[in-house]
């Protein structure tokens, strides 16, 4: 820290110390449960999650998806660059093959796995571990996220107990595709980030070990 910075730091801290009011205690935060419409039972959490994410234009697939490859071919017939961030599916590229963060903008669809969903808000958690290249979370066009329904927690209090928030350099609670209401209060999707977000709720997924039919 140079001397100007040291001076600024000390000036600010001195001013804060001189001015801060008499110490007030930290309240204890109760463990809130989900609201009256939902208990913390797994079946209810899935229903709540689906309802929450739908409000934010996210799409949920609850039926079995036996073949990821045919799934995304059917859903994104125009897509050419399919990035897979999961080991059991090859896609056309892997995140590791990106040479520069900005190259994530060339990705049409990225398949990811999320370690946690949140029923209260319909959010899924992603971090630099799942993304491998952070910019995928907002530069790719469409995201498909695999989520084990047993990993859906009740509310945001539960969500922030996840160790990622204390350990990872980047973690995001993502809720639906990017959007904005800045133009005259009209909600539009997408805004700057991903165009669609599809969550596949499945604890069992049959992987397709070979590369996709379409090449990037």
């Amino acid at each position, binding site marked *: 820290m140079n001397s100007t910075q040291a001076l600024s730091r000390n000036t600010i801290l001195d001013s804060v110390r001189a001015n801060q009011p008499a110490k007030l205690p930290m309240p204890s935060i109760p463990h809130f449960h989900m609201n009256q419409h939902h208990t913390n039972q797994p079946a209810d959490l899935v229903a709540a999650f689906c309802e929450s994410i739908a409000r934010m234009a996210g799409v949920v697939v609850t039926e079995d998806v036996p073949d990821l490859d045919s799934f995304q071919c059917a859903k994104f017939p125009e897509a050419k660059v399919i990035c897979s961030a999961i080991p059991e599916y090859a896609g056309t590229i892997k995140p590791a093959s990106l040479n520069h963060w900005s190259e994530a903008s060339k990705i049409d669809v990225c398949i990811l796995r999320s370690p946690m969903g949140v029923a209260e808000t319909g959010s899924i958690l992603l971090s630099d571990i799942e993304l491998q290249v952070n910019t995928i979370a907002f530069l790719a066009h469409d995201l498909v996220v695999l989520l084990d329904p047993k990993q859906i927690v009740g509310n945001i209090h539960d969500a922030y107990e996840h160790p990622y928030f204390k350990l990872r*350099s980047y973690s995001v609670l993502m809720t639906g595709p990017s959007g904005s209401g800045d133009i005259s209060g009209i909600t539009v999707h997408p805004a700057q980030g991903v165009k669609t977000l599809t969550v596949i709720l499945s604890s069992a997924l049959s992987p397709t070990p070979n590369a996709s039919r379409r090449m990037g």
Partner: protein
Amino acid sequence: MSTPVDQAKNAERFLADTVHEQRLDKLLWAMRMRRDAAARQVPEWEELRTLASEIKEHTLSNLSDYLIQFEAKATANGMIVHWARDAHEHNQIVYDLLAGQGSNMLVKSKSMLTEECEWRPFLERRGIRVTETDLGERIQQLDDQPPGHIVGPAIHKTTQDVAIVFSKKYGSDPENEDAAYLAGVMRENTRPDILDARAGMTGANFVVAETGAVVVATNEGNADLSANTPPLHICSVGIEKIIPTTESLAVFVRLLTRSATGDRITQYTSTFRGPRKGAAMHVILVDNGRSARLGMKRFWHSLKCIRCAACMNTCPVYRRSGGLSYGSTYMGPIGIIMMPTFEIRKYSELPFASTLNGSCTNVCPVKIDIHEQIYGWREVMEENDQIQVVKKEAMRVADKVLSHPTLYQIATTTVSTALEVLPHFAVYNRLNAWGKHRDVPEATTQTFHEWYRTHRPKTNEEVRRG
């Protein structure tokens, strides 16, 4: 010495434009209704508000310790922490970082703090091009107008207004007012800058001391874009944004978006705990009058603000005045109680842009006693001789008359003399202001006290309190 912002006159001008005024009023009232609907779904809503308020009060009363804790953790995480005493120092730090990198362009997500520091003109004068990536901020930037609302900076503009701005600056179709089309125009035109930028700037909604992390909530993901795409991420944040723990963060995240728009959470609520590999992350902790405000017994609670704008959406005066009428970085109820701490003379009229109805206080997720502080600022303005001479004189006359029963009774014998003395009307020596859009009260044959003297003479005699 700066001239006070004449918010009343600006509001009058805004009201004359019935299209924009009616639209804004309806839109923001609907936002307030959405907030109500969202709060109804959370049975513990009031408990959350109380918790949020207490967490903030605890943090602010221990702020020096938490700042030091954050600095240590953030540094250990690989961030570089800077301290800026004022707006100028903040701007200089940013410029030096860019100059050090050899950058002459950066992308930026929404930050009211940078507006407060007048950071963009500072950089632009030094040859740095700034691309706002928040849709609302970008619209305002292109239109060379400051933000009109702290959550939706361009919310006062119609789709037609936006179409015109984009057609002028981006060459898009001026006739196409479709919001999705316009958002697409923005996306196309901003994407190249995002991909090319070597520096990105964000603000932060919350700063977590325990983990050395900053938390940014956006709908567009543009903060993530600005932070994660370029190799240099600069995060500017006011020192009051600190909260103690990740556990406490949950309380605020549950309150913030519901209060702001009625959604349960934003599309991207992100925690940045350190730079990604090969990149740099700098955090600038900015004072700019906040530590001084901490020492204001009556007003330090305004530092609890989490910038949700619920107070603006509910404020009947804001909705009819428009955000730009306040001539300030922060507007509406929270603006009224913050801006005088920056420049007392310039914002001396703002505390009077309120009916003291108290709706703001009751929607505030952190329970700031906003309307009480507005009242408090009026007293401060009087103590600091910031009140218009005309108004003060009228009040002095009123006090004289109203503390002397005989003078009072003489003054109220006729409606016209009463109208000149009773303070509501006396403020401008004429009735012109009241009578512009309203009829004055009708003439009466006698006052209540005159009636009482004739109809209850016995009790009248018995009562002589001195």
